[in-house]
């Protein structure tokens, strides 16, 4: 398993002035952290980060196969890696909010891997699926698939029954940081319900997306 080696004890890296242009929806006010770097394209099986992401994205249709065990192991490894990077005395003050997957709950392709990673951080972790998708993103009109933040916002909703007990910190969690669109939209939604909470993002990997001819393709779920 690519994830079960010594380097998984690595520190989280902050998105700063150097790498922010790779995620052009992020501003200097957005605090995001990541572990590895995903390399797009076929033939990159040699990258450990790619193996992690590949395992995480194994389709729910593979449940009850050996493939699924790799996914579960990777989820546990990711949870442990995040746990090692959270100050233990801060943990009771942190809520982990998964960035919702592209499919709605109830869709056979719905994959709550990010929620599972959050739960693997600690049995004590405060995991709240506050934000959810109301429409499958790939079911959207072709013109909307190249979404802008407003289009994305229009298909996300808040579970208001989960917002009580405002935490000091909220960690928006996802497996991949691409343009930063999903993070900024979810952060704006959380800020409305938790105005005094400090919100950061943690991602297993980032992927640099070249900004091409103004095309806004924000949901690269590859």
């Amino acid at each position, binding site marked *: 398993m690519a994830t079960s080696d*010594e*380097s*998984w004890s*690595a*520190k*989280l*890296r*902050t998105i*700063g*002035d*150097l*790498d922010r*242009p*790779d995620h052009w929806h992020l501003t200097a006010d957005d*605090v995001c*952290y990541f*572990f*590895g*770097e995903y*390399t797009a394209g076929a033939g*990159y099986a*040699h*990258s*450990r*980060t*790619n193996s992690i992401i590949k395992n995480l994205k194994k389709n729910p249709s593979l449940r009850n196969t050996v493939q699924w065990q790799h996914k579960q192991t990777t989820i546990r490894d990711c949870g442990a890696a995040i746990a*090692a*990077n*959270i*100050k233990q005395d*801060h*943990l009771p*003050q*942190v809520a982990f909010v998964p960035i919702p997957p592209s499919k709605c709950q109830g869709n056979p392709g719905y994959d709550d891997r990010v929620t599972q990673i959050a739960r693997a951080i600690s049995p004590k972790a405060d995991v709240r699926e506050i934000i959810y998708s109301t429409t499958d993103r790939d079911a959207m009109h072709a013109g909307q698939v190249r979404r802008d933040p407003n289009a994305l916002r229009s298909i996300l909703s808040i579970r208001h029954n989960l917002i009580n007990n405002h935490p000091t*910190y909220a*960690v928006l969690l996802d497996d991949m940081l691409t343009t930063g669109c999903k993070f900024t939209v979810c952060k704006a939604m959380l800020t409305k319900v938790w105005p005094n909470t*400090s919100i*950061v993002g943690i991602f297993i990997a980032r992927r*640099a997306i070249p900004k091409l001819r103004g095309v806004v393709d924000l949901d690269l779920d590859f």
Partner: protein
Amino acid sequence: MQQATLWHGDGGRGPIVDPIDATLELGAYEALWTDHAATFKSLADRFARNPGIRPSALVPEEEARRIAARVLEKLRGRIEKRFDVRVHGEYEYPERLRDATHPVELLYFQGDWSLTATRCIAVVGRRKPTPEGISRARQLVRDLVKDKFTVVSGLAEGIDTVAHTATLEARGRTIAVMGTPIGHVYPKQNAELQDVIARNHLLISQVPIERYDSQDYHDNRLFFPERNKTMAALTEATVIVEAGETSGTLVQAREALKQRRKLFILNSCFERTDLKWPKKFERNGAIRVRDYGDIRRELVG
């Protein structure tokens, strides 16, 4: 023992343990090099004395931020495409780089970093090769590419250039570990090659931008042998095609053996009666290569 001044020792505010801010580290790394007594050895010694610290622990944050902003502006003016750094301690920093005699805390790069996760073999040699040396380097590279190795070299004139170009011709993968900074074309005649490697392969440099800019060629020459130590650490083996008795290539030969990497020396080097180094290295564990099978046996089995 010299006591380091720790500026950011508590890992900052917020719930994350000691996160790595690569921009800050870049500025701090460059700041450490503004001390004219700084060398890769002195810096490596300093970090060895203070295990686990990063450059930002040794430089006031304001200074590091100021220098980082200046360096980023310079590099963005010089480099059209994206560039990045790797910082010791982050997930993508290969632990094997710590085997170098003077391990580096930060590396600049352009291109596809995931190539460092492939099996990497260094092919190095003199800047003024013989026609036979060029021909041997080409054949060697073709064989390595066929066995799916990534060919690593130093982008210098001569054998290094042949190693990179022959890899590209064979549609293989290549990494250039430069002795000059990113954003600086060297040697000039390799401008296009450097660009292709930066775009489609991987270009690495540990050379500090501002220190290099402030020095003349004479002082900057000292960066060349240092990158050979990093190249030896990055690769699982080094193959020497040709080298003179005082060649910088021999720095890498010594490093490879010291770091317990395999060192291969082409047989033609042994046939030169005026050279003493091939036998010396062979006595210390280097492998004489009469044909590619001698390399393949060691690396592929």
